Structures are given as C-alpha cells and as structure tokens.
C-alpha cells in the first residue's frame, strides 16, 4: 500500500509521532528526501494551524491526514472538522521586507504552496480538506 492514513489529536505533542510514522512510511516506499521534507512541512504547518486556530470549542478532535507516494507523485491530504476556513484565501506574507519588519503570519501556508505543484482546498461534508501534490521526477 502506498497510502498511509494518520489521525492526529488536536494537541501539539501528537504531531511529532505522526510525522515520524509518515517519514518511515515514505522512506520505505523509496520516496526522495525532498518528498519526505515536503510531507513533513504540510503536516507541521496545516495541523499546527488547525490546532491553534481551527476549533471553537475545547473538545478533543482528530485531524485526519493521508499521505501517498506513487508514480513519483506525493499527495498529502489534511482534513479537519474545525470551523470553515480556507487557508489559501489568506494573503501571502511580504517576504521581500527587511527581516526587521517581518510579520510571519501566513508564512507556513505560503511555504506549502510554493514548495508544492498544486494545493487545493474544499469544504466537504463539514470538513476542511486541503490537498497538496508534487511530482518528483526520477532523476532528482
């Protein structure tokens, strides 16, 4: 199976073990280091944002992540049942400002979008769904 499904509880301590499982899975499939790095980044940025800002209650929630690497293409899907939020609707940060004037809000999703070939958002049956894909040619 090239696809791994993970359920990450909405607390920060749950991210690292899930990321570790993802890395082991992708490495076992022979995915390139850059693909593992990108999957790591997608999970870290999106799940962190969801835990921080996604929920209007203090209940336990699970963020569902699926990671797939097949035919040289990485696909990471992140689903959460938080309030409706399209992270792609946020304005990109101004990365040309001098470091002294930086406000890094929105930088995480900016990194994910720039490093992926394609990032899509949809609201599906009460879930926010973000899907990031990138193709890694074999000669890389």
């Amino acid at each position: 199976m090239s696809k791994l499904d993970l359920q990450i509880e909405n607390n920060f301590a749950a991210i690292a073990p899930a990321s570790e499982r993802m890395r082991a899975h992708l490495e076992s499939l022979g995915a390139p280091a850059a693909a593992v790095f990108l999957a790591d980044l997608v999970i870290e940025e999106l799940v962190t944002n969801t835990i921080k800002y996604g929920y209007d209650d203090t209940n336990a929630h699970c963020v569902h992540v699926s990671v797939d690497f097949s035919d040289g293409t990485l696909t990471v899907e992140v689903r959460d049942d938080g309030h409706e939020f399209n992270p792609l609707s946020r304005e990109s940060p101004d990365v040309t400002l001098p470091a002294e004037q930086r406000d890094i809000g929105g930088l995480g999703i900016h990194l994910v979008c720039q490093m992926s070939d394609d990032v899509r958002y949809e609201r599906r049956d009460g879930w926010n769904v973000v899907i990031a894909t990138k193709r890694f040619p074999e000669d890389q």
Partner: protein
Amino acid sequence: MTPPMKIDERHEGGALVLKIEGRLDHDGARVFEECTSRAIAAGEKFLVADFGGVDFLASMGIRALIKPYQTLAQSGGRLVVANLGDSVREVFKIAGIDQAVPIFDSVEAAIASQA
C-alpha cells in the same frame, strides 16, 4: 522516537556557535528561542547558527530565527547562519530570509565574516 532537537554551544573566534541537531519544528523553535534569548541576555553579540544538523525547518523555526536576528540588529550585534542543507535552503529562499539573514557555507566562513 526522534530525539528532541538539541543545541551545542561553543565560543569560537568571538562568536557563540550554536550547533543545532534535529528538527526546527514547533518544539524545536521553542528550544532555539530559549537558547538565543539566554545568550543575548548574557551579552552575546555575535551568534552563528550552524544548521548542518537541521533536517527539517518549518515557519515556526523561521520565526524563532528572525526574533534574535532583530534583537541583535537593534543593538549592533549579528546573527548569521551556516551549513544549510538543500531543503532547508529552499525554505530560506521561499521565505525570503536568504535576502536578510547572512548565509555562509561553513561556520569558519561565518566567523571570518565578522573580522
């Protein structure tokens, strides 16, 4: 389990070299922030962050880097980075940090830049 990020500190050529091992993620960023805050409070003026052992960098790690960079820049100090891996370098580039924070190929070159 991946061990948490750790930072070895050593003084070399007028710099405090911070050799980072591990992931500059949400948790790692906090460790880095505490380390640099402590160093700056102790009077360090020139920090060299050695990224040779950093295998992952997220936006929280960038933020943890910019804070001490800003603090030092305001007081006549410097923070520079050295030894970036390919993916980490790409994150620097996309975040535009490569245009702000000086990047060196080695710790030696970073230290020499202060002379």
